[in-house]
């Protein structure tokens, strides 16, 4: 299935969707499939400053732990508490209810460094 057209993607398998003044960030459906059953997410507190492509947290499956990298620089506005309490939402709906963070972008030009849905689908097709 093609990746949703309404957002941008990183090579580290995060997606970013603009939503008014801010953006929502999550991991892609492809990433959750690779991870297997997600059991824990460790996300930055609201107010944390993020730098594009640097580590922002961790996501754990039963037998693996992966770093999460922020697709953009900015400030964390909100953490999806539902996904903290029910990490399986990442598996069930990675592009929807399984979103991770709401971020205020500090530099909109950074979006140009992200992939389009077509580019991302080609990237994961390898």
């Amino acid at each position, binding site marked *: 299935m093609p990746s949703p057209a309404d957002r941008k993607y990183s090579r580290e398998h995060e997606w970013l969707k603009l939503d008014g003044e801010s953006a929502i960030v999550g991991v892609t459906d492809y990433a959750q499939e690779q991870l297997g*059953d997600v*059991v*824990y997410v460790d996300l930055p507190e609201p107010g944390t400053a993020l730098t594009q492509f640097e580590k922002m947290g961790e996501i*754990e*499956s*039963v*037998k693996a732990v992966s770093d999460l990298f922020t697709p953009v620089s900015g400030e964390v506005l909100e953490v999806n508490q539902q996904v903290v309490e*029910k*990490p*399986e939402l990442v598996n069930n709906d990675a592009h929807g209810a399984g979103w991770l963070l709401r971020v205020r972008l500090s530099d909109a030009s950074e979006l140009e460094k992200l992939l389009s849905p077509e580019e991302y689908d080609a990237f994961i097709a390898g």
Partner: protein
Amino acid sequence: MSTQILEKTLMELSHAGRVGVTLPESDVPRSAERPPAALLRDELPLPELSQLDVVRHFTRLSQLNWSIDTHMYPLGSCTMKLNPKVNDAIAATPAFAEAHPMQPAEDVQGALAVMHGLQRMLAEITGMDACSLAPLAGAQGELAAVLVIKAYLESIGEHRTTIVVPDSAHGTNPATASMAGFDVVAVKPQPDGDMDLDALRAALEEHGPTVAALMITLPSTLGLFDRNIVRIAEMVHAHGALMYGDGANLNAMLGQVKPGDLGFDAMHINLHKTFSQPHGGGGPGAGPIVVSARLAPFLPSPHVEQVDGRYALADPPHGIGRLGAFHGNFGVLLRAYAYIRSLGADGLRAISEAAVLNANYVQARLRGAYDLAHDRTCMHEVLFSGRRQKAHGAKTLDIAKRMIDYGYHPPTIYFPLVVDEALMIEPTESETKETLDAFCDAMLEIAREAETQPELLREAPHAAPLRRLDEATAARKPILRW
């Protein structure tokens, strides 16, 4: 759906008022000095069971386990060999079991003689100069040896901060390096499984004077004897770094080669693998370390020394200190000592020969059915990849679970991480040819099933006390106590 239970917990079996053992009344007058009431507890929520309830509970639980005593247990890198009962009998002897660790040396000369003898025998077997029995487990032995190396380097004014580790290494290696305050640099093996000398050279050159040691397992975690090992040691030493050997696979080398002769400076030994200490469901083990002469002054405390025919505990002059409250896992050391004494030099050499022959026999019999990670003579364990079966729809995990239906404990799977769908089989020297043949027949049958009925594997085990367990829910919503 009501939850079915294999065995109730102790707390579920508890019934207020029952007791499992009697205790005496006090034979001294009650002290007039009472403990302050503020210090006393009012509740102690422990289970209350009759003696038979306790016996049946733990007996039934034991019967839910598979073990060496009941099943072939070819768990790669774990050396699940015969655990001789005579060693247990010796460890239970009151003369040893009732020795108090703080007794003066003059009153525990027997225990100290065992430790001194084991120090000497382990140094001899590995070709090293000195031995410490203090580490309480393999991982702690690693930590101790790396701290010894660090202390030695500091003593000669070298501040080195990096340890090079093959990426096929056991996870304890990088975790240990990190606990000892080192950065870790990983190097990949070349396609034939030996270390990539160019990659090693590049790592040594890039990190040059900061490299403290190379941590390497020999035979490697791929089950192979690295043919360049002498060259590797020369390269490492040329950079002023030391050679650290992870002794997990020592069983393959007993009497065949001494790591000290190959240039190793330090090594830990897993007594619960090579030297037959029972694994106990995950401990106790012991992780003695052996080192070359230049590292000996830095060994942990205590060290057993012999002076004028008497044994005593001593602190090495520049030692890294204690690793545990006392002198090491003496009961484990005692079993290892007895094991070596029961085999002698010829017996130990026969162990490694049989262990290596058995692994190569399994390799030969399964070669056509499973992909080999490296098709060459293996040492004491053989590493397959389940990638062919995965293409048919049965992953390595499924193969492992299906083995349970055939009555074999699964091998080590998904380790080392560098081999796709890894399946690592270590038969050990303890199995008969008949058992190996039956095991290989089962593996061949499973390979056929993987092609024809992969769902049979995916749903396995069918004949175990439980079917597959939900590990995701266990981790998402941890229930860690009653």
